[in-house]
């Protein structure tokens, strides 16, 4: 593969204060195209703020974000979405008064998708239903045609994922996709995400379920109190004392189990 002079995606010294609270402090990292990065950290460590900063929902206090060599810091969320960075939300809020497939029509009709694939409004219904089918909502079931507000809560996360994928993104950011999902839903969603990654999609995944996360990611970044405290493969990261401390809350050695 040809090496481009710019990193695919790069965050430089990103920082965000909310009043006196330092939510994200001096975070820098890079992503290669097609890489799968996990972001972990205790509650309140700045993970969601990081996502909001990258996707333009929150403006950084200082620092820079580059995507394909272009600076995207401070751009509007819709501009960033149009450039190809899609996200899901921790608290899913879809368009509840629209049928499930119509929720995907808007991203499918965005100027980005038009540029990539063409097609006009009114011709996209099949594509939306195909996408839902890929996500496990079978076209013969009535799910794609029902109003989102009437669907079971467990479906909404996967629907949100479908909505993000409908944008045909270059980078997908998953903000605690698995929270609120049942074990079986996680088990059926994880292979989907792995498939997207194998097909070349760059993914940033924020997750509390470490076991599932570590199975799929190339690299993990650990945040604590807004700072990056570790980065590396899952094994490397979990060996670090600071990570153990952050996750256990106290500085203790886990005693080796005594043989009985």
């Amino acid at each position, binding site marked *: 593969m040809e090496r481009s002079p710019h990193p695919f995606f790069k965050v430089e010294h990103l920082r965000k204060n909310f009043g006196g609270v330092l939510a994200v402090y001096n975070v820098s990292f890079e992503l290669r195209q097609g890489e799968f990065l996990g972001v972990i950290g205790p509650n309140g460590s700045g993970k969601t703020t990081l996502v909001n900063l990258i*996707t333009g*929902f929150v403006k950084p206090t200082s620092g820079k974000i580059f995507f394909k060599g272009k600076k995207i810091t401070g751009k*509007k*969320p*819709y501009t960033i*979405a*149009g450039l190809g960075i*899609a*996200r899901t*939300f921790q608290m899913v*809020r*879809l*368009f*509840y*008064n*629209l049928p499930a497939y*119509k929720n995907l*029509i*808007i*991203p499918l*009709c*965005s*100027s*980005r998708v038009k540029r990539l694939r063409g097609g006009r*409004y009114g011709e996209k219904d099949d594509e939306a239903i195909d996408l839902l089918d890929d996500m496990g909502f079978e076209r013969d079931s009535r799910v794609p045609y029902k109003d989102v507000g009437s669907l079971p809560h467990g479906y909404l996360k996967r629907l949100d994922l479908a*909505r*993000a994928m*409908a*944008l045909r993104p270059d980078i997908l950011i998953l903000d605690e996709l698995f929270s609120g999902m049942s074990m079986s839903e996680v088990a059926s969603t994880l292979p989907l995400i792995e498939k997207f990654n194998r097909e070349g999609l760059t993914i940033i995944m924020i997750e509390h379920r470490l076991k599932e996360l570590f199975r799929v990611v190339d690299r993990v970044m650990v945040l604590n109190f807004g700072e990056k405290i570790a980065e590396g493969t899952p094994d490397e990261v979990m060996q670090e004392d600071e990570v153990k401390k952050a996750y256990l809350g106290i500085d203790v050695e886990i005693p080796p189990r005594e043989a009985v």
Partner: protein
Amino acid sequence: MSLLIYGLINSVILALYTVGFSLTYGISGLANFAHGALYILSGFVAWSLMNAAGLPFAVSGILAVLITAAIGFAFYWVLILRVRGIPLAELIVTFAAGVAILELMTWKGFYGLRYSLPVFVNGGVEIAGVGIDYQRLIVLASGLVLVIGLWLFVHHTRIGLAFRAMAQNERTALSIGIESDWIGALSLAFGAALAAIAAMVVLPLGVMESTIGYDVLIYALAVAIVGGLESTLGMIAGSFLIGYGQIAAARYIGAKWMVIVPLAAIVFVLSVKPSGIFGKFKELEERV
């Protein structure tokens, strides 16, 4: 019988006053307090085009609607964009702009009996023993056409879908690449156009004065508050309640009590069910 018919006409007029206001509010959460000013401004634009440029009413009416829509669109980019997201500032900006438009028109001399728009067709018919002129029938018809047309637009076009998405959840809409400012400006342009369309059919019923702008704003607010903001059904119900209430008050208490009805309705609804008849009280999570 005349109570029934005139109540119906009055209700439809109120609905026409309100439809643009509640469309803009429903989509972008922007309470456009310049709505009444845009309404009467479009009337004077049409009048000026007819009397200064000598155009027929059909042409100048359509032009007036387009010009008013353009003013609404520009209004968003020039003034509202700067205070977007601060509801109180939005309210002050739109209200101030409305007052400025109205007072400027008063200063220019747009009051008195000189100014009126022609009716579409002269004459009238008698329905069930009640005399009714064609213009009022046209008002009824245009109210119906407008509501159906809007429904079709919102449900069957791409912009309509974006409108609905934006109305339901701005945050999610942003994340799939809907340009909120573009949609906001469009929503204001549509609201302004609807105000102008209402003006073109309703204004021929009487003379034009710049102060009508204030009345229209109060009626639109009353209907929106009584019916519940953001609810189309509520808007229709609110129009009918106040519309019939006014005609009944005029008939049984006295004509001067007509103006009290919308104000009394606002006070009553706010004290009994603040979210309006069909409005939804926002959940705590959404309010913080």
